[in-house]
């Protein structure tokens, strides 16, 4: 079998970044909130990514900010995937009126900019709290997962082996969970990578806009909005923060690419 270089490269990039991010939950080179007199230091061995306008170590802040960003993205995708898969599996498997309605609503919702929907939900819940951010983004991601799952289940429902399993007396729940779910995994995994990237981007955008994560918490998006105001003095702030985010999105994107090429999909 041909080596799947996209998948390997993606896993390598994502793996290294995740490891460093995970480390950031327990240990950072400096206290990320500690201010010092060393303002606007360019990247050097002591401060890999330099320091910001308060003399804080940017590398430590990026480690923590990435942690916040990815944690929020993970929770978001978890809510979106759990809700979407459940909804999609049940409606796709049973069909009927609920299915029709879900398709229509889903079509209408996926046509909307996800950020706009998330902004609406968060303005209803009240902006500024991470929990509300996760909830609003999670809700917004449900339709896209429901759509993918529904399609896979609607297709599987018509396949003969599913029919024969039913005839052998398997319950609906068993067919849904044991017989069909494993077959939808490849599609679902690819959808997860895309959904995760969208979640990171959406969180970053909203925090950049000042509606998502707000101080004292920091996420990559919020840090970029800080970095913009000091770009003239410390361009490395924006470049390193943005670079880490792009690299992570790139890595996850490559994993998705690898998964799809393994499926033999030319797209």
């Amino acid at each position, binding site marked *: 079998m041909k080596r799947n*270089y*996209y998948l390997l490269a993606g896993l390598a990039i994502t793996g290294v970044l995740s490891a460093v991010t995970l480390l950031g939950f327990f240990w950072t080179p400096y206290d990320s909130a500690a201010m010092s007199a060393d303002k606007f230091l360019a990247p050097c061995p002591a401060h890999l990514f330099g320091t910001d306008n308060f003399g804080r170590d940017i590398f430590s802040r990026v480690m923590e900010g990435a942690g916040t960003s990815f944690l929020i993205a993970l929770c978001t995708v978890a809510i979106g995937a759990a809700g979407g898969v459940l909804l999609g599996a049940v409606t796709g498997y049973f069909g009927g009126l609920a299915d029709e309605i879900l398709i229509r609503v889903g079509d*209408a919702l*996926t*046509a*909307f*900019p*996800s*950020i*706009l929907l998330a*902004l*609406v939900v*968060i*303005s*209803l819940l009240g*902006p500024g709290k991470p929990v509300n951010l996760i909830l609003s983004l999670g809700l917004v991601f449900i339709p896209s997962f429901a759509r993918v799952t529904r399609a896979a289940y609607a297709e599987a429902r018509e396949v003969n082996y599913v029919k024969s399993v039913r005839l052998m007396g398997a319950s609906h729940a068993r067919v849904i969970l044991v017989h069909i779910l494993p077959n939808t995994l490849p599609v679902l995994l690819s959808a997860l990578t895309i959904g995760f*990237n969208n979640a990171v*981007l959406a969180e*970053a*955008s909203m925090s*950049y*806009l*000042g*509606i998502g994560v707000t101080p004292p918490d920091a996420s990559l998006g919020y840090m*970029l909005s800080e*970095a*913009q105001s000091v*770009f*003239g003095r410390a*361009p490395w702030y*924006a470049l390193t923060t*943005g670079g880490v*985010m*792009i*690299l992570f*999105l*790139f890595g996850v*994107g*490559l994993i998705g*690419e690898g998964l799809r090429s393994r499926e033999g999909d*030319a*797209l």
Partner: protein
Amino acid sequence: MKYVFRRLGALLLTMFLVSLCTFAAFSGISGSAAEARLGTQATPERVAALREELGLNRPFAVRYAEWLSGFATGNLGDSLTYRQNVGELLRDKVLVSLLLSAMSFALIVLCSIPLSLLVVRLTGGPLDAAHTLFNQFCMSVPPFFTGLLLSWVFGVSLHWFTPGAFPGLSRIGDALRFLLFPAVAIAIPRTAMTVRMLRGTLLRELNRDYVKTAISRGSDRDTVLRRHVLKNALTPTVAFLAQMMAEIVAGVIVVEQVFGIPGLGRMLVVSISNRDYPVVQAIVVILAFWVVASNTVADCINVRIDPRLALGDK
């Protein structure tokens, strides 16, 4: 023609539902928001007076109908922060945002079509993997990061434009030059997505039997592409580009903040922070209309290209 009317009907129905949901959701909280505004002075009498002033005591259906008709007459109620009519407040901003998304859209279309034709030629060659990596990389760059770089390089360093000082639509030449940079920031990842989709579509079409037939009649590759493949690839592309409009609007919302463009996106963000719900709900409906309308236009274009679509839809 019947198809077009049916699509228009669906458009109106969708917008009716969208506006109803939006209005219902926001009218639920705008009362409490108004009370919050009074703060410590919130005696029951004052609250009642405020509710009366905001018209919150009248039946929901009446308020909704009034608000909906406001999209035609321009009277969408008053902003809570600016003490100004929402219609007047938004009029210029709508045009700015429309212009920005139209420019981004044009950039995406103009760049992705030649690029995807080039990329299709690379398929299977040594540069194929390089393209995939580059494409994946471009998709990973968030528009607000590109925007940040562009505004510093071309704005602050090279002085080609002044970030934050949008010249206004009356000086349309300057305005277009200003908007070119945010449009590029929005267009880069979207172009990458479009190229990727177009490449897949073109490759799929090139493998179809009718291509074999055309070659067996003596067409060369370019003729097959021009006469047959491009037209067949067009309908999925038009549908994809219409969906792209939603992505563009998402980009517009964020990038307006980066460049300090006085458009709907910036207004939306400010109004959410201010809990200025009359403004928020109007902007939501306007942006939603823009996206749904693009999809409707795409459907109508597609049914002219492919007559089979009108049959499938009963």
